[in-house]
């Protein structure tokens, strides 16, 4: 992943910036240029609430090369409290503790190192609320 491609997504990855449709209120994460619900093209930038609920998940045992050293690791679909959905790793817990419906907080973590140069890439991960 080249640097501009990573940098472009920083508002989403670091600050959970989404686009809220000015007409119907649909939360686009990441932001879009047109609302998939109502076709409106005007959005206001908002930050997602960094907490939500696990809708589904898996524990990955066979990963692509970039993540091979981290297996097994959990990944899930999280619905934030304001109703946006995203995919994130679920960390700081045993896989057996994860369940559909459990509450999580979204926090900033290192996601991976880029290639042999080892450029660090950050983003959100989910941790269980305890």
């Amino acid at each position, binding site marked *: 992943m080249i640097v501009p491609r990573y940098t472009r997504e920083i508002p989403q990855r670091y600050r959970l910036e989404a686009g809220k449709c000015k007409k119907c209120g649909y939360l686009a994460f990441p932001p879009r240029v047109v609302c998939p619900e109502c076709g409106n093209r005007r959005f206001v930038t908002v930050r997602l609430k960094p907490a939500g609920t696990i809708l589904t998940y*898996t*524990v*990955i045992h066979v990963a*692509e090369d970039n993540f091979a050293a981290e297996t097994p690791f959990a990944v899930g679909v999280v619905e934030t409290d304001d109703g946006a959905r995203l995919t994130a*790793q679920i960390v700081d817990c045993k896989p057996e503790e994860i369940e559909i419906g459990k509450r999580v907080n979204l926090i900033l973590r290192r*996601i991976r190192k880029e290639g042999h140069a080892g450029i660090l890439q950050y*983003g959100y991960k989910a941790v269980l609320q305890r």
Partner: protein
Amino acid sequence: MREVAIVGIGMTPFGELWQDSLRNLFAKAALAAIDDAGVDHIDGMYIGAMSTGLFVGQEHIASLMADYLGMPGVPAAHVESACASGGIAVRQAFFEVASGAGEIILAGGVEKMNDGADTTYVLATAADQEYEAFHGVTFPGLYAMIARAHIHKYGTTREQLADVAVKNHENGFKNPNAQFRMKIDRETVMNSTMVADPLRLLDCSPVTDGAAAVIVASMDVAKKLARPYVKIKASAMATDSLALHSRKDLAALPAVQKAAERAYKQAGVTPDKIDVMEVHDCFTIAELVVMEELGLVERGKAGAAVSAGMTRLGGKIPVNTSGGLKSKGHPVGATGVAQVIEIVEQLRGAAGDRQVANAGLGLTQNMGGSGGSCVIHILEAMS
């Protein structure tokens, strides 16, 4: 639009074909289809392939294939829709003939997956790169999340998932072109290596090299050739959000339902009229959800139906008589075309040990990514 037929079929065996290059795989399948049809030329071709660039470092493949098919000059285009690329190639050929622009068009698919690429990475490029794959999600991981949601919502069991693989290997055992011609039992599936919980190795389709091709032609040409042909009664497609997380119901595949609705309407049939189906069982859970979206069973009931034998050979509606992606193999771009080949063989009554008695109407369902695209064909036997 005028009526369209399939007049010839050809494929390579599916497997780890170390001695065959991308171009030779394609040429072998294409020549077999041309010979089967008995045509002396083609007016053009469409080639489905997911990612020859990442798998073998080769793009611009349509011209390469025309060249190595010994037909430089013929119009040729590469179509890509991840794992649905092959089905889309058939659909493009259908349109070219239906429109009257071409009389004889080749639709092919090819993938060379065993040339050393990081296959898990390449396949994950069919997911949302920035918002799914960035977080380490793999393709088995996405379907595992669909499986988890389905289990949670409907009570689908681990045993029911395994039974999909058992059934498809039972069929693939009878298919000389299948990559894994062996029977397996439920325990073997459930004790195989974990890939993405709850999916294990034997829930997943394999990494495969292979190519497949069909000759699509006008009815006039089909009748003149005086060989067995089948009619394309419907060619329908639908798309959906690329990211799984954007879908309202994570235990569903809405693109399949939309494409099916369009296909049934075009063909003027209901699902209970179909005699045999080839569906996109890239993972065992996919076959279950697809059965529900195609209207074979109510939502949440597919697992029980499979375990009760509804979709076995001899069952109410045999599904994946070829062995499916699971046992036959899944050379991504070739899969959609190979599905059509199995149905053509069934409708010709030439499927050997896998034959469904009196098959008159067949359906293929081919899907890209985690359901971001789906293409369905309904084919009818012509006697």
